[in-house]
């Protein structure tokens, strides 16, 4: 779109230097650069000057929506490091810790050209501090996840899948996987064994900030993410959970508490359909791409099954009555462990009546 007003402005201001124009119209008296407004110029001086070097209209006529869009495109690189602590709210963009500043700006560009507001601080609190580089060495018996970057073999309910597309994971498995933020972003869904009860522990080691999600439901709906767990890059975490009956999925994705990462993990494979040019610079990679996920299952013990036949029934009731009263170890009928077989144990037995889980 040709902007005649811009052409006019350029013609009329030929004697101005761009910087001079920018300095005249940028500063603290003005509204912020991320919001369109009628006056020329905007609050963040560095960003304002940068935009006006490209589009003089923004500093001579009006800071309109186009200027805002240009600010979003142009100003993300100018503010790291910058004044202000990364864990403190301040009016200027960026913050002192360059690596933290870069990380936050990468995922929330506003923090790099707008103001370092409470959201940026919260993101810094969640994301910064663990920026180590590492490389996970998978154990020999680890199972490769086996999904190339550009394929979609376990992306769950993404796109228009009628049913969740997921890999299987079994108790005791260790999965060596990879995920990326290259569009389409990659997430890895693992279908948990159809065990109906018990404690589960997922152990995740990751080269990138990772999230584990517990998801249940149907792609068409309802589908719910009922809980999540976060692992910092180059660390490992154990997440134990109990699952109600149903089909559950454990999902690995790049992200931090409450948010998925949108960038920083570009695919490291060559797309045969779209190979890069020889002189093409690879996209910057903030982290490694790999993770190691181990699943351990701890079935609920069926303590009231005194005879070990897989069910709590009349035979177990009989054994409990036989052991009634004071009872020293070992005493299988002392279900609550108080060294007495009494009404409480009887209640526990009745509560567990039926087939063991």
């Amino acid at each position: 779109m040709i902007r005649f007003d811009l052409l006019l402005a350029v013609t009329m201001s030929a004697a101005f230097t761009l910087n001079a124009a920018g300095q005249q119209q940028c500063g603290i008296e003005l509204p912020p650069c991320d919001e369109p407004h009628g006056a020329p110029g905007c609050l963040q001086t560095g960003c304002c000057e940068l935009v006006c070097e490209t589009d003089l209209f923004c500093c001579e006529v009006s800071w309109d929506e186009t200027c805002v869009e240009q600010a979003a495109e142009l100003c993300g690189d100018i503010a790291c490091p910058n004044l202000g602590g990364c864990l403190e709210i301040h009016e200027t963009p960026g913050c002192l810790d360059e690596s933290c500043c870069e990380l936050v700006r990468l995922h929330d560009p506003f923090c790099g050209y707008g103001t370092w507001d409470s959201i940026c601080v919260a993101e810094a609190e969640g994301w910064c501090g663990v920026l180590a580089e590492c490389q996970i060495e998978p154990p020999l018996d680890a199972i490769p996840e086996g999904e190339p970057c550009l394929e979609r073999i376990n992306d769950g309910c993404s796109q228009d899948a009628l049913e969740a597309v997921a890999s299987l994971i079994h108790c005791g498995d260790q999965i060596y996987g990879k995920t990326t933020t290259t569009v389409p972003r990659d997430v890895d869904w693992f279908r948990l064994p159809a065990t109906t009860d018990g404690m589960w522990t997922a152990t995740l080691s990751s080269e990138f900030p990772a999230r584990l999600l517990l998801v249940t439901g149907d792609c068409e709906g309802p589908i719910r993410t009922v809980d999540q767990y976060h692992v910092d890059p180059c660390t490992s975490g154990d997440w134990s959970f109990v699952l109600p009956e149903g089909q559950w999925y454990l999902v690995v994705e790049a992200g931090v508490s409450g948010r998925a990462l949108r960038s920083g993990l570009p695919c490291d494979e060559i797309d045969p359909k779209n190979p890069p040019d020889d002189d093409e610079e690879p996209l910057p990679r903030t982290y490694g791409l790999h993770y190691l996920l181990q699943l351990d299952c701890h079935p609920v013990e069926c303590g009231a099954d005194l005879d070990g036949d897989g069910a709590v029934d009349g035979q177990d009731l009989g054994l409990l009555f036989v052991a009634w009263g004071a009872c020293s170890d070992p005493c299988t009928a002392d279900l609550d462990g108080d060294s007495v077989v009494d009404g409480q144990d009887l209640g526990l037995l009745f509560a567990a009546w039926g087939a063991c889980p």
Partner: protein
Amino acid sequence: MGLSLRTIRSGTSLVCSSILLASTLAIGEPTAFADGPFLFGPPQIITMPTPHSPTMVATGDLDGDGDFDVVVPGRNVEGFAYLMLNEGGVLGAPVELVTGGQTDWVEIVDLDGDGQLDLCFAVRSLRGRLSILRGNGDGTFLDFEEISLGREPRSVVVDDLDGDGDPDIAAMNHRLPIIEILLNDGAGSFVRAPQVVVGRSTVGIPFPQGIRSVDLDADGDRDLVVVATGASRIFICRNQGDATFEASEGWRPSRVNGQIGGMTNLSVGDLDLDGDDDLVVPLILIGESSHVGIFENRGSVSTVEFNRDLAFPSTNLGYAYASAMGDLDGDADLDVVIGHALPGPVMVLDNRTVPIAAGGDGVIRLEPPQQIANDSFFRGLAVADLDGDCDLDVLAVELISNSLWILPNLTPQANGCGDGFVGRVVLPPTTRETPARSKIEVDRLVDLDGDGVVGGSDLALLLAGMRGDQADAVQPVRRPEGAAPR
């Protein structure tokens, strides 16, 4: 929160000329009430005084004279919305309301319990915030107050979320998948309650676009429903009674020939008259006629279940964008109004559901759409009795022509309301010629939500971000890698 105001007035000046004009079109046999075409008078078109990119329209009695006044938020670079006071059924000239930023949504409600309606705007900014204008009761307002929010709030709902009798606020952020809950202390001051996370279920970016409140599980409290355009899902957040919410549940809309439509908007109402509220979503489809998708509430208690099998065509002229519901023919059920984009007819779908309570099967049936207006991009809709004749008129904001359209309802009303107009209309009232705008070239669309496919959700995101001056210059937008699209 629904407004209790529903003042019935007999006199009207807004539609007098419309009635005369329409009457000249009326010939032939009388038609049965609620069984004929919808009839709307020529629109009263109010062009905003400055480039405003109007985003929605809301009504309420802001000056205490018993009729509905109108507020139109917009993406105005000067940071104001427009107020039009209703005087005897005629809207006055737009008056600027300084809000401090571009606004995509407004709720009209008495926030501080002083008996005067206040305005609560969602300011669409990466420094997201609410802008609250407290009403003086005479159509004037105090200077705006701000409450900070997350990244780019595009919609807000005001309702009693914690059951203490005063209106609370739930605001959704387009660029953060969280809903922010602000609890009212009864005097219009707000404290933050735990946020609600809009669940993840796709690789794409959810991009929430709209939020409404409704009791879906019949437990007496207000649940939240979010339309997430990027995820092509609605998310249900069930209230536990105290403004804390269970993990959100995502639901896809009904598929149309296998395609999942893009969604930008949501309406709530009891379509099948079974005592619970259903949800209506406009569906943006590629290569298909636009549709209206229905989430029919099955009335389950302590859970939410929908029948999603129903979808009705809304037009093959443009992309379904905005929705509203109201009983437009006085037959005691809710009809559906859909605004479209590029081009932009307004269509009404007559509700012909026969409820179970009346001996019917309760299956939702909507008649084929009837066009009541046409222009370029009707981005927001509302229904209200503007002219005081006790039938519902349609209000629509037109993004491209920067205007508010008032469509006076002349439809014969089964309940005896209306203008007394009886007859069969041979031709619908002429509005405008269909503008010669081409549809968006879908092959130029890009994957805005980053899910790896270009579909209705991407088109919906493109439309939702559009300003009034952009319809003829739709540009592909960068993919999210590296930097989020704006």
